[in-house]
């Protein structure tokens, strides 16, 4: 399928406030799509609509559709648990569980009912290698994940996410709490991961968007002002507001 995620006329409300307005966007399979825009413009709310994390907020309402491989994620027949296994998420602040490094990565596998020690060991190693963390932690898999550095913790969270082999990885400003070296490592990782996963990354860092993404969408006040190929958005944006934002005149 050409587009893994498609949103059509998506409107999201929290109580009375209208957070997302008529969002329509298609995100190509196995590419990176960057979402940029000032704080509070709805980027995070949008990606949380894809894996239905907004369901946790009692006042959440929406209309319009979000499709994953052509299936409506809000269809009553869609199992949220199954959806979240297909659409993984990496958060702004690294949030490993207060468990061992091994147990963090094995967590999602345990949830899926995998108990075979050998299989677990193999998948944990494979995921840690996939997240470029294996060499740093292979000798201390039983240590607590909270003893790792911030950058390592974030790569561990990526390993935890890819361990369950999702189709899509949502990243909500994954580098905003990290130093430049850790950020570079995560960006390299994103380049590698896009071969197998469709990645949607929220970022406040313009350079990061140009470095990692094929497509970019510019959000402003809950609307998508402009979306398309990243180079086009950054080199010759169609809308003045996009140009103002990427050149740093506001935001």
């Amino acid at each position, binding site marked *: 399928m050409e587009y893994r995620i498609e949103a059509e006329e998506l409107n999201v409300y929290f109580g009375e406030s209208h957070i997302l307005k008529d969002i329509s966007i298609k995100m190509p399979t196995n590419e990176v799509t960057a979402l940029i825009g000032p704080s509070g413009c709805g980027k995070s709310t949008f990606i949380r609509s894809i894996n239905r*994390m907004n369901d946790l907020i009692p006042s959440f309402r929406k209309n319009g559709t979000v499709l994953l491989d052509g299936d409506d994620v809000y269809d009553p027949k869609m199992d949220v648990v199954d959806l979240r296994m297909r659409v993984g998420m990496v958060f702004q602040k690294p*949030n490993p569980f*207060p468990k061992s490094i091994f147990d963090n990565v094995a*967590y*999602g596998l345990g949830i899926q009912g995998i108990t075979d020690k050998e299989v677990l060991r193999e998948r944990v190693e494979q995921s840690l290698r996939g997240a470029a963390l294996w060499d740093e932690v292979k000798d201390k898999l039983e240590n607590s994940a909270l003893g790792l550095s911030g950058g390592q913790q974030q790569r561990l969270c990526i390993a935890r996410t890819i361990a369950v082999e999702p189709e899509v990885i949502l990243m909500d400003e994954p580098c905003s709490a990290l130093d430049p070296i850790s950020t570079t490592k995560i960006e390299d990782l994103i380049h590698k991961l896009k071969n197998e996963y469709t990645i949607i990354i929220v970022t406040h860092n313009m350079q990061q968007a140009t470095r990692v993404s094929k497509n970019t969408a510019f959000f402003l006040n809950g609307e998508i002002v402009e979306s398309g190929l990243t180079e086009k958005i950054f080199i010759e944006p169609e809308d003045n507001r996009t140009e103002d934002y990427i050149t740093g005149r506001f935001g």
Partner: protein
Amino acid sequence: MHRIIPPRNAQSIMNVVFWVSGIITLILLLVIIGYILINGLPVLTPEFLLSSPLNAGRAGGIFPMIVSTFYVTFIAVIVAAPLGVLSAIYLAEYSGQSRIVRAIRFGTQTLASIPSIVFGLFGMAFFVVFLHFGFCVLSGGLTLALMALPTILSTSEISLQAVPQSYREGSLAIGATKWQTVYKVVLPAAMPGIITGIILGMARAIEETAAILYTVGSATQIPISVFDPARPLPLHLYYLATEGLSMPNAYGTAAVLVIIILVITITTNYLVDRYIKKMMGR
């Protein structure tokens, strides 16, 4: 405004005030424990610990009382701990902010502040008389469970609420159900606090006298069945002292109580501390 005391001096004065308050508390604790141990330890022979009382406690030992204490406390904890922890999970993770939740919380706080003698009276009316359990280990244990319940519940609820929301989100986002999230992530993270709450509740049950006065009987034999009457240590101490049977034996009994509480508190603190260190990777 004119300052009466310059900030730097105020700082030094308050440092001294805090330090002195801390030291006074510590000294009070040491004096009480020391006084009990100095008077009680000479009585504590193996024979005193391992034999039954003779002549209403004027002579002999306190072995049945030690057994009774552990017996009623055990019953109190196996009833109150699951009930308290499960209610806390409901309140912290599932309930939201409905009217019934506020009612439960209010009920818990009220329960915690009811005098223990009132619990004793209720225990007698309900367990001993109404349910026909009679004066026995079960009636006493259940009454103590009621007393320990609010402590366990509120401490557990606070520990669960203190678990960062990001853990829950991380777990749900990976496809875990709510229950899996609670069971595999939130509960282990809150466990040190929950254990501390259970131990606080347990200590309350071990030390309690008034609540068992009307419910557990006063038999000096070793209780076997839960329907046997018994005489836990605090109650024995009460009889020895108020009826003037034997002050040395009263101090001996008090020393045993103090030692039991100290051992339990210190071991749990140590174990909880180790668990936290392992969990946090320090």
